[in-house]
């Protein structure tokens, strides 16, 4: 599986460019723009979680929406049924989802890439049907009434869209730099090597299964943070969040952005979400267009938009 992996300079530049754009849009935009930016930020976190296991470990998951769901539903239940603060519940859902991810990883992490896609798709769909039919989780109606963190004690009102968008941006920034560190660490490098040649890592005594399981577990946790923040953004959750199209959208985002650079995933999330939003307001058949676009990118732009940026950077040298 192909991924980009070696341009820390561009990676940081792209990240800052996107960050600055988000901040500007947030400050100067209206209500809807701020909401939209928050959505993009949360989707970026989801995309990063997918990008991480695809480029580090060679695991392409089509079922990750289930971790979005775990994050969202767990947050709803923890805040509404147990009175835990939204902020704390985001952390708690990270732990819960990571543990579930670890258990699942034990079974699936050594599967060949294509089997892995099939199995994660199946798992995601099964989670989706369970959530749809579960009365405890509100069935097809979902759950509503979830609150945002209460930061009144420092004079901040998170119900203000400007504030909340900055709040989720902080999460994105933290997750981003954490993953950069991990990517450059011995574990991250070994995961990258596993994607390229997992047999050799075994031959030099590596704990291949353990490394991949850690990566998958971490990825699950990060996806659940996205889910937790998503439900706080909207105030409600519907089971559609765990539909396969959400996992699919994530996959499209990282392919469009270019797998491997983390910043690319954020770029992909931004572009895809904007395109989808604009398209769906003009035509009904936007999925058709996205499907075609996706196929074209898979065929002709193997490094996605990141690849384009790298080429531009080369030309400017």
């Amino acid at each position, binding site marked *: 599986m192909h991924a980009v992996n070696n341009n820390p300079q561009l990676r940081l530049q792209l990240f800052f460019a996107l960050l600055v754009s988000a901040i500007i849009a947030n400050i100067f935009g209206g209500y809807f723009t701020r909401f939209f930016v928050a959505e993009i930020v949360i989707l970026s976190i989801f995309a990063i979680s997918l990008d991480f296991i695809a480029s580090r470990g060679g695991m392409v998951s089509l079922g990750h929406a289930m971790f979005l769901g775990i994050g969202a539903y767990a947050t709803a239940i923890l805040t509404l049924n147990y009175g835990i603060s939204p902020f704390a519940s985001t952390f708690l859902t990270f732990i819960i989802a990571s543990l579930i991810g670890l258990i699942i990883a034990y079974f699936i992490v050594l599967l060949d890439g*294509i089997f892995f*896609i099939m*199995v994660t798709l199946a798992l995601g*769909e*099964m989670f989706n049907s369970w959530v749809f039919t579960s009365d405890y989780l509100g069935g097809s109606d979902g759950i509503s009434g979830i609150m945002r963190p209460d930061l009144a004690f420092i004079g901040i009102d998170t119900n203000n869209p400007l504030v909340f968008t900055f709040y989720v941006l902080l999460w994105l920034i933290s997750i981003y730099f954490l993953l950069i560190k991990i990517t450059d660490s011995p574990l991250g490098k070994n995961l990258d090597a596993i994607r390229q040649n997992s047999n050799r890592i075994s031959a030099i005594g590596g704990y291949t299964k353990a490394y991949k399981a850690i990566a998958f577990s971490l990825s699950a946790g990060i996806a659940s943070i996205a889910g937790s923040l998503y439900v706080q953004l909207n105030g409600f959750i519907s089971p559609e969040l765990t539909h396969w199209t959400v996992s699919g959208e994530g*996959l499209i985002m990282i392919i469009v952005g270019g797998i491997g650079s983390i910043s690319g995933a954020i770029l992909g999330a931004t572009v895809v979400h904007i395109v989808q939003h604009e398209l769906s307001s003009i035509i*009904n058949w936007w*999925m*058709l267009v996205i499907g075609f676009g996706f196929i074209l990118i*898979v065929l002709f732009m193997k490094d996605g938009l990141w690849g384009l940026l790298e080429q531009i950077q080369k030309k400017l040298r």
Partner: protein
Amino acid sequence: MLLIQFLNALQFSMTLFLLAVGLTIIFGLMKIVNLAHGSLYMVGAYLGLSITNYTDSFWLALVIAPILAALIGAILYSILFKHIQNADPMKQVLLTFGLIYIALDSVRLLWGTMSHSISAPNILSNSILLVNEPYPSYRLFVIAIGLIVLFILYIILEKTKIGAKVRASVDDPETAQLLKINTDKILFYTFALGCGLAGLAGITVAPILGVEPGMDMEVLVLTLIVVVVGGPGSLKGAIIGSLLIGFVDSFGKVYIPQLAQIIIYAVMALTILFKPDGLYKR
């Protein structure tokens, strides 16, 4: 009552089989999983719907829809898969994923988003008395179709020259290529056949389950599990896997609805743990 459940499970298994066998042979030969397989199932059902509405004949639809689905498969192979045969398998799988989106919206554009139904043909609209219980004869028909296809495929694979070529290409593609078994032609026909079978499954089951967008993914998941459990590339694995998953799902939903899904998960998990290549390796 038990007989009824048994027959329902068998009918469901046969439907799964029609889907799984196409998917597994494509997987075995091309080393890729066609995620758009469910889409072809859906397209088969919709094409069947239109043909039935236009010609008032279900039988015509039953014959033509799969052929059209096979044609679509042939076109897809020729313009897309043929040219990226040597590319990273993951790339090819991603392409099939993109096709799902295209198929879904195409169906919605052409037929709308409502669900439709097709009536079974008159001869099969009645019930037959089995051990004093009435049982819809259409479901028996579906079982029969499945068994016939199984039989035909078995004969082709085991007793004909072209079947031998297919088996050779699955078992050892490099040698097959060296022996000039014309693998490309085999891939073409097999891919088309697999798609045709998916279409057949769609039109066959349409009178029972109806026709709606979204039917592509519901069935894909169980089909994938059948292929994972049964073993990619194996006809035996496809039928055994279909029976196993079909029966667990059907009986599970009736007697222990809460646990049915978990049991299927468990079957898949156990297979992955102990026989990661599936029950029957081709």
